[in-house]
């Protein structure tokens, strides 16, 4: 990992001029015939390889949706697994075209990294997991605890703020990767493991006895997770942004992976705009008219992707909560496609 970050740093320093003229990401991707997508290193539900070696997860499906929109083939992707601390450098240096790796949208990341967030794929918050045997019911009882955390995330700073704000002491042990942190927690080096709540549920599945561990009720931060692209290429920014909106819109309109062909024949003006049978909205993005059906055919709508990866239909079984559509009690909302 260290070597990777060094190499990309040097690449950045040498300033590969191809990347400087970065206003052509779409063209670069098309010429290459493949989308290069930065994902996590194995977080069930978001990005992890299954037992056959295929990448699965919500973040992975966002990559697939983009590839489907561009190539009409969701398999034309090179997945680049990245640790938390290497992810931005990989994006800056042009090693990846889009970073879809449960990354929290913050002001400083939006401004100083030379990259932009394109939307929110998952509204999350940071929580704590402890062993049941400790009989802890609240994060406020964690005074003097040892806490394992993955370094290079907003988690480290939230943790410091929370304990300071509640006048509690703690010891932090920060590991290079998530797996190392989980392993140290499991071996008893720490009392507490902390990351985003979705991650806690995902990591709990990896433990030897998931039932021996409990996620505490406190959610101590706002963690809107979303994809990122480089500054300076508005067309590519729009494509990534609207790919996610297309998935949300599809759920709102009841377009699913199964009924997409049928729905495409609809006479409703709204449907005609979405499916491109009327107007050329897809072409305005630099894609084709049928971009929405391409996306839904390959990964389904947002709700389907959610259920399949992290929701009721998955091992994680996380409730929709904040991630339900705006008209169903959540805050997932897409601007109109028109």
């Amino acid at each position, binding site marked *: 990992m*260290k070597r990777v*970050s*060094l190499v*990309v*740093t040097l690449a*950045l*320093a*040498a*300033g590969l*001029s191809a*990347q*400087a003229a*970065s206003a052509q990401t779409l063209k670069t991707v098309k010429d290459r015939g493949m989308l290069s997508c930065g994902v996590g290193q194995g977080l069930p539900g978001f990005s992890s390889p299954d037992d056959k070696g295929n990448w699965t997860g919500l973040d992975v499906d966002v990559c697939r949706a983009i590839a489907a929109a561009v190539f009409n083939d969701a398999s034309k992707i090179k997945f680049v697994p990245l640790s*938390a*601390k290497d*992810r*931005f*450098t990989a994006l*800056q240096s042009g090693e990846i075209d889009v970073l879809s790796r449960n990354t929290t949208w913050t002001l*400083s*990341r939006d*401004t*100083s*990294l*030379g990259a932009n967030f394109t939307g929110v794929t998952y509204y999350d918050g940071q929580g704590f997991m402890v062993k049941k045997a*400790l009989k802890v019911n609240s994060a406020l009882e*964690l*005074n*003097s*605890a*040892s806490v*394992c955390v993955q*370094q*290079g*995330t907003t988690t*480290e*700073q939230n*943790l*410091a*703020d929370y304990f*300071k704000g509640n006048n509690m002491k*703690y*010891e*932090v*042990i*920060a*590991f*290079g990767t998530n797996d*190392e*942190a989980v*392993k*140290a927690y499991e*071996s*008893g*080096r720490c*009392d507490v493991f902390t990351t985003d709540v979705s991650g806690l549920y995902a990591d709990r599945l990896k433990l030897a006895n998931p039932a021996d561990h409990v996620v505490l009720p406190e959610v101590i931060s706002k963690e809107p997770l979303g994809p990122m692209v*480089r*500054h*300076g290429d508005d067309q590519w920014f729009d494509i990534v942004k609207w790919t996610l909106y297309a998935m949300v819109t599809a759920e709102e309109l009841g377009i699913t992976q199964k009924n997409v062909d049928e729905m495409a024949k609809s006479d409703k003006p709204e449907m005609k705009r979405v499916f491109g049978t009327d107007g050329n909205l897809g072409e305005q993005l630099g894609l084709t008219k049928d971009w929405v059906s391409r996306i839904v055919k390959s990964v389904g709508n947002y709700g389907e992707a959610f259920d399949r990866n992290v929701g009721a239909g998955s091992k994680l079984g996380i409730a929709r909560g904040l991630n339900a559509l705006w008209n169903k009690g959540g805050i997932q909302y897409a601007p109109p496609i028109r």
Partner: protein
Amino acid sequence: MAIEPRKPPSQLLPKLQRALGGRAGWSGFVLQLLFVAALAWISYEIVANARANLQAQRITAGFGFMANTAGFDVNQYLVPYSNSDSYTRVFLVGLLNTLLVSVIGIFFATLIGFFVALGRLSPNWLLSRISGGYVELIRNLPVLFQILFWYLAVLAALPNPRQSISVFDSFFLNNRGLVIPKPIGTAGFEPFVVAVLVAIVVAIALSRYARRQLFESGKVIKVWPYVLGLVIGLPLVSALIFGAPVSFEVPALKGFNFAGGSRVIPEFVALTLALATYTAAFIAEIVRAGILSVHQGQMEAGSSLGLQRGSVLRLIVIPQAMRVILPPLTNQYLNLTKNSSLAVAIGYPDLVSVFAGTTLSQTGQAIEIIGITMGVYLLISLVTSAIMSFYGWRIGRSMGG
């Protein structure tokens, strides 16, 4: 009319030409100039290009971030640190943690390495086979694997804080590390330190005097009873007069962990242990080679003077072997220092972990931070080499060579 002796033609120009251009003369000099200019141009291009690209992508550049608040915690610091300190402080904390592991690791690696080398050369069959086995086993396994072994397999097998292994109810060993009573200076502390220092200085003077007497008049003076009396007696007297120098803050289990006392974190122990034992295997071979490079006759000559095997090694063989040992030994010291950056795998907060890891990811300023980090390792290595060269020069001088 006096005839002036003819001066030889001035040697200045040819000398200059040779110094600048070597055997090729002026054309060589021009080529060198061109080479340097090309290097300078390439470096300038790299810097300018990087700068332009950073600006074009609106990535923040420069070193202003060093003054910003870090906002995260570190679990081992040799200088006071809290999460409201700046990134500069984080850098210092990480640097000191790296140096701590390196210095202690180098000390133990050298110690173990020397003993294993002597063991391997020993006429004792068992000892020499065990030492040989150690070298072959340790140096042929990857060091990262060994670090993880010490951390996960050995240290994680320790009990949790509530079931600590305790000695006298004041030393506790558990999977959070070793907790020991913390000495706190009291009124008698300063006189005590003075007494210890005085005792040491007098003891050194005494043994030097005894040595001179031995060389000048052949008189053997038994100094060690006096030295012992001084070093123990003087501080004791001070403690009796001024009171005990320190009181101890005994750690006690409070909540999840021990409060009070000092703690050595397991990450530090695992990393130091792994690096020291790993590097020791290489040092052992270097020392063995050094000793074998000294002619067998030296050993025999020493023995014929009636010296014991240990004395022969200490007084005759090792000083000569040091000249062979030193350069590769320096390499091993540098390797150990650089290998300490593997700390990130087990969560030890070294420079690479807290600075090139967390700080880089929080600020996103990869070029600056990787640049600083590389510069620091370069500096540490150069300083280590310089110290070792100085030591080598002193050995060479003392041997008259």
